[in-house]
């Protein structure tokens, strides 16, 4: 009987000690951590109010005499002769952080176009009071027409390079003003200028903000 009592007490002590030790040795908390969601990159592209897919058909384009209308400014009508539209590039509400690369390509000689970084999220960025002021600033210091047209191309490229650097957060948008003139002297067949057609193609390639844009 004594023997049994001793055994029982021993087991009791061990068990109680185990119970207490379990509680004493371990302290646990469980908390929640995080949730992430992924969505598709969603780009919104408009020319003025119209949804754009890949190509803008230019109509009612006015032709200028490069020397008289721009260099000499004899008619003071350079701005009014411009065909302009606003290109809007943005991301949807559910889009991840995004970068976009724009590229323009013209298929025929005889078109002068100027890209202007116009606004960011509706806030207008003024480059110059008039198109004439801006373009004369761009070509200032260049002697020949070829050099001047190259300067305009370089300026356009600098605007596109700027777009490359932008990280679009959801609903962000940038607007580029595109101004175009027909250049009568650069046409392949100047006498047929009334039937001239220009296609200004552009592409938009978008990646998430950590991805690599095409150069």
């Amino acid at each position, binding site marked *: 009987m004594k023997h049994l009592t001793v055994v029982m007490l021993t087991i*009791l002590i061990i068990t109680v000690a185990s119970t207490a030790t379990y*509680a004493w040795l371990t*302290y646990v908390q469980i908390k929640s*951590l995080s949730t*992430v*969601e992924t969505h598709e990159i969603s780009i919104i592209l408009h020319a003025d109010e119209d949804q754009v897919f890949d190509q803008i058909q230019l109509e009612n384009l006015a032709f200028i005499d490069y020397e008289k209308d721009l260099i000499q400014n004899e008619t003071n009508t350079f701005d009014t002769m411009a065909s302009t539209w606003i290109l809007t590039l943005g991301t949807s509400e559910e889009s991840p952080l995004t970068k976009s690369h724009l590229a323009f390509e013209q298929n025929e000689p005889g078109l002068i176009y100027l890209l202007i970084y116009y606004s960011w999220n509706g806030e207008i960025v003024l480059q110059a009071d008039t198109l004439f002021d801006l373009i004369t600033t761009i070509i200032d210091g260049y002697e020949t027409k070829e050099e001047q047209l190259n300067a305009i191309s370089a300026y356009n490229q600098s605007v596109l390079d700027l777009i490359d650097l932008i990280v679009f957060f959801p609903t962000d948008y940038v607007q580029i003003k595109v101004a175009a003139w027909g250049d009568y002297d650069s046409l392949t067949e100047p006498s047929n200028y009334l039937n001239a057609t220009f296609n200004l193609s552009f592409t938009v390639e978008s990646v998430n*903000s950590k991805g690599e844009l095409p150069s």
Partner: protein
Amino acid sequence: MDNKHLKKTRKLVISSIFYVLFVTLMTTTVTYAWFTITNTNDAHLVSNISEIEAEYEFFAYQNINRDGSDELTLTDNICLVEGEDLCYLTIPNPTTPFLIDGSAAPGERYSFAIRITSVNNPIGSLKLDFGGLVSEGYNIIENKLQTAFYYQVDKISYLNYGVETEDLKDSLGIVYHQGFFTYDNDIFYPFVSNIPMQNEENVSTLIMIYFNFYFDPNIYGQESDGTPYTNSNIFMNQIFTINDLYMSVSN
């Protein structure tokens, strides 16, 4: 009743009492343990279970560019106003998973920090583990969003008399793990363990653990026949949740 029979009966009664007592005690032990675990899901940051007691605060680093944190400190680096960027935002009582704003994309990094305060000056060690992973919206299990995430410890430090120590994760016998989550949801991911609850001066202190989840842009998933994809697009339109972060302190 003869003496022999009486002795046998008494022995049987004593044995029965012993077994009943033993079973009762075992049941108590198991129930206690079960309650101990269950109780940890309550909303209080401090559960006073026994001599060992600790509380912790959870922080999510705010970086609109999703580059994670390269300023691994909580000292003067906690967000004070709503919408503040490049600081650690306190997530009070995280009983539901903290939703990272917006849409995640490959190449992004999300940083977090946990600050643990030891109470009652315990002499135990700390352990953190992940569990309860869930991905939603995948086509085959190999393409679960969670498989593209890499978890990593950035820094483990102490706060001694208001001054945060350097990174000590490679010292004091601390063990830490890093790697990709697998597509098996039932896996328990050991994260950090054997972190002393006291600093070298044997003084009760604060422990800071900084870690991040990286959405690896080089994980592409695969087609149903096993052919690997060449981009991360298969992970679009999914949701990935880490439901549980286990913190345990033991002697």
